[in-house]
C-alpha cells in the first residue's frame, strides 16, 4: 500500500501510466487480431531504414514533441497557453518555401537561395512570432490566450499571402531531408531529439529552469528576489515561437510543400494536451520536460493505435476527447480530495486513527 502510494505520488506517474495503458491496448488489440502480441514494439529494417509502429509513433510525433517543449515553458512561466503555434508553424513553412522557391512560384526543383538560409529564415520567423506574443503577454500584460489568439488567426493567412495564395512545392531532395531519413533513422526523430537535448542541457546547466518555475509559481516574490519576471516570460514565448518554426520546417519538408491549409492544423491543441498529459499543471509553476515529451508521444501513440485498431481518421478525435476528459478529471481538485478522503477513511478503518 505504502509503496503504491509512493509510486503514484511521483511526478511522472501519470504520464508513464498513460503511455503504458496505450501500449497495453496495442498488445491486446494485436492478440485479438491474431497478430504477434508485441508487434507494436517490433522494429525491423526495410529498404535500408527503420520500420515499425514504434518508429512511426516517434517519427509522426516529432512536431508535437518539438512544439510541446516551448509550450511547457510558456505554461510554466505564464500560467497560460500559446495557441498560435499551429498557425506559426504554417507561417514558418510558408516563409521558408517562399524564399526557397521565389515569390509567386508554385513549384520548383531549383532552390533560389541556399537551403540553410531558407530554413533558418523560417525558424527565425517563428522566433519573431514568439517575440510578438511575448511582448503582448509580458510587456502589455495581455491574457496569454487572447494575445496568442491574434497570431492564431493571422499567421496562417500571412503565410498564404507570402505564397501568393499558392501551395508552394519544393521538389528538391535536400529540402526533403528534414522530413525524410538521416541515414536509417527518420530525420524528424533526430531533430526532436536534438531539440529536447538542447533544452534539457539549458535547463540543467543554466538557472533558466529555476527562474521559469520561480516566476510561474510566484511572480511577485520572484521580482523581490531579483528576477526580471517579464523578461523571463518573454523569453519563454520567444523559445516557443522558435520551436514552432522548427516544427513548421519539419512538417513542410515531410510533404515537400508549404500547404498553409494543412500544416500545423490544430497542433496547438495537441501541444497543450502533451503538456497536460505530462503531469504538468496548466496553472503554471513546476514542470517536467520529460513528462511533456512522454505526453507528446503518448498522443501520437493513441492516434497510431486507433488507426491500427481500425478506427477511422474521422472518429479518432472522439477517443482523444475521452482521454483528455479523463486526464482533466483526474487532475481536478474535487477528484483529488475524493481520493484523499477515501484513503483517509481506509486508514481510519485499519485503526490508523489510534496514532
Amino acid at each position, binding site marked *: 500500500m505504502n509503496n503504491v502510494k509512493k509510486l503514484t505520488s511521483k511526478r511522472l506517474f501519470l504520464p508513464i501510466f498513460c503511455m503504458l495503458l496505450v501500449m497495453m491496448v496495442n498488445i491486446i488489440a494485436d492478440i485479438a487480431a491474431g497478430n504477434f502480441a508485441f508487434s507494436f514494439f517490433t522494429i525491423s529494417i526495410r529498404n535500408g531504414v527503420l520500420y515499425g509502429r514504434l518508429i512511426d509513433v516517434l517519427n509522426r510525433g516529432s512536431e508535437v514533441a518539438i512544439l510541446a517543449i516551448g509550450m511547457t515553458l510558456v505554461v510554466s512561466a505564464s500560467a497560460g497557453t500559446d495557441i498560435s503555434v499551429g498557425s506559426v508553424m504554417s507561417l514558418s513553412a510558408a516563409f521558408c518555401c517562399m524564399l526557397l522557391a521565389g515569390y509567386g512560384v508554385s513549384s520548383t526543383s531549383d532552390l533560389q537561395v541556399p537551403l540553410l538560409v531558407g530554413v533558418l529564415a523560417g525558424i527565425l520567423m517563428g522566433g519573431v512570432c514568439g517575440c510578438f506574443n511575448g511582448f503582448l503577454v509580458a510587456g502589455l500584460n495581455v491574457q496569454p490566450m487572447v494575445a496568442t489568439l491574434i497570431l492564431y488567426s493571422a499567421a496562417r493567412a500571412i503565410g498564404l499571402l507570402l505564397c501568393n495564395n499558392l501551395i508552394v512545392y519544393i521538389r528538391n531532395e535536400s529540402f526533403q531531408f528534414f522530413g525524410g531519413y538521416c541515414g536509417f533513422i527518420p530525420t524528424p526523430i533526430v531533430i526532436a531529439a536534438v531539440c529536447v537535448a538542447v533544452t534539457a542541457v539549458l535547463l540543467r*546547466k*543554466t*538557472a*533558466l529552469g*529555476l*527562474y521559469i*518555475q*520561480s516566476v510561474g*509559481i*510566484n511572480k*511577485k*516574490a*520572484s*521580482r*523581490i*528576489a*531579483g*528576477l*526580471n519576471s517579464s523578461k523571463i516570460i518573454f523569453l519563454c514565448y520567444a523559445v516557443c515561437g522558435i520551436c514552432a518554426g522548427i516544427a513548421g520546417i519539419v512538417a513542410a519538408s515531410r510533404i515537400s510543400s508549404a500547404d498553409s491549409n494543412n500544416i500545423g492544423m490544430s497542433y496547438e491543441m495537441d501541444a497543450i494536451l502533451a503538456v497536460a498529459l505530462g503531469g504538468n499543471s496548466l496553472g503554471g*509553476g*513546476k514542470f517536467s520536460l520529460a513528462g511533456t515529451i512522454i505526453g507528446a508521444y503518448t498522443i501520437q501513440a493513441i492516434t497510431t493505435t486507433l488507426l491500427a485498431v481500425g478506427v477511422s481518421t474521422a472518429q479518432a478525435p472522439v477517443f482523444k476527447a475521452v482521454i483528455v476528459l479523463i486526464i482533466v478529471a483526474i487532475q481536478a481538485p474535487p477528484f483529488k480530495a475524493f481520493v484523499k478522503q477515501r484513503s483517509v477513511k481506509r486508514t481510519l478503518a485499519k485503526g490508523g486513527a489510534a496514532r
Partner: protein
Amino acid sequence: MEKNVVLTMRGITMTFPGVKALDNVDFTLRKGEIHALMGENGAGKSTLIKCLTGINAFEAGEIHVDGISGAVVNHSTLDAQKKGISTVYQEVNLCPNLSVAENLFIGREPKTKLGTIDWKTMVKKSRKIMSDLDMNIDVTQNLEEYSLALQQMIAIARAVDMECKVLILDEPTSSLDDNEVEKLFGLMRRLKSQGVGIIFVTHFLEQVYAVCDRITVLRNGQLVGEYPIEELPRVKLVAAMMGKDFDDLAAIKSDETKDFTHADVMIEAKGLSHKGTIKPFDLTIHKGEVVGLTGLLGSGRSELARAIYGADKAQTGTLKVNGKEEKINAPIDAMNLGMGLLPDDRKAEGIIGDLSVRENIILALQAKRGIFKLLPMSKQIEIADKYIEILQIKTASRETLIKQLSGGNQQKVILARWLATDPDFLILDEPTRGIDVGTKTEIQKLVVQLAGEGKSLIFISSEIEEMLRTCSKMAVLRDGAKVGEITEDLTQENVMKAIAGGASK
C-alpha cells in the same frame, strides 16, 4: 435585547489551524451609532466581521440582530444581507460597466407584468434613492464615470436601500482623498441620523476621532474593551491596540547607545517618494546602524522601505548608496548594490511555495549571479545546509517544499535567502510576525549581530519592544509620510506618543 441595540455578538470564538483568531469576543452596536472597530493587523477585526457576514463559520457564541428572534447564523453574505447586515469594502464590489441604476438594483430589478425589467421604475427609484442621500447624479451613466468616492457611496446607497440595519464599512477610506473622505463622512452621519448602526473599520486614527461615537478594540483575537470616544484619547487607543498600559511601561533599552554620527553613511535618501504609497522622505542610515520604522499599519513604513529597495520604484528624489548616487529601477539593481528585502507579506512576496527549501535559499544569490552562472549543485547543497544549520530551520530535508514548513521556518528560509547574498544593507519588514517567541528572539539577536558586523539594517515591526531592543534610531510614519525621527530617549512612551501624533494630549 437592550433597547436601541441593533446588533449584539456574544462570546464569539473561532480558531484557524493553530491560532485562536477570536477568543470569546463581545461586540455591541446601537442604533444610530458609528462604532469603530480597532486593532493591529491580526487582531481579529476582519475575522469578526467575516463571522458576522457569514464568510467564516464561528465555533462558539451567539449573534442577535434587532427584530429577529433567536440567534442568527449567517451562511453567506447574501444571507446576512437578507437579515439587514450589509458590507461595503475598500474595493467597490459593483460593476463599473453597468449604469448606476443597474448597480443599485442588480439582482432585484423591478419587473413589468411581462417579466422584463421595468427600466422606467428602476431609474425613477434610483433617482429617489440618490436624492434622498443628497447625491444628485445621473443614474443612467455607467458607474465607472464617477469617482471612486462616489462609487463607494453608491455602494453604500445600495446597501441602505436594501433596508440594512447594520452597515459595515471595511477600510472604505483607504483609496480616497481628504475631500472625498469628508463627503463619505457626511453620508455616514446622515445614515446615523436615520438610525443605521455603522461599524467602521479603519487604520486612520484621525478618521476615528472625526466621525465615531464609540470604539471597540481587539488585540490578538481578544476583546480589549469598548469605550465611548471621549474616554479614549488617541495615545490610550494606541496603547490599547498595542497592548501596553502607560502605568506599567517598563523601559527596555539596549545597554549602550551608539553614536553613529561619525560612521560612514550607507544609505542617504533625499525626497524619495512613490505616488499613492509614500510621500517624499529623507533618511540616512550609517554603517552598522539599525534603523526602526514605526507607525501603525498602513502608515507607510513598509512602503518607505520598498521605495528604497525599488520594489515600488521611487518616482522622485535621489538615493545615494555608499556616497554614490544610484538609480534603482528594479529590485535586482538594489541587490547588486548590496541590498536585500524581506517583505512583510511572506506568502505573497516571500516564499516560492512549490520550490524546495534549497531552491528558495539560493534564489536571490542565483539571481545576482545571472542566468548563465548556475550555482553548482554541490555549492547549492552546501549553502542550504549551512543556513539550515545556522538558523535552525526545522525541515524534513533541504528538498522539502517550503510551503510545507511552518510560518516561522518559512521566514527563516527567506532570511537565509538574503543572508546567502551577503548583503551590506538588509531591510526586514515584520520579520517576526506570526512566529513563536523563541524564533523572535533568535531573529532579534541576529539583527544585532549583523549590525555588529558593520551591516546596516532597516527593521520594521509592530512590536515596539522588539525595535527598542534592536534599533538605535527610529523613523516615525503616519498616514503615508515620514513625520519624524527619534534618536534620543527611545522609550515606549515616546515612541507611542510619536505614533499617535497630532493632538497627543
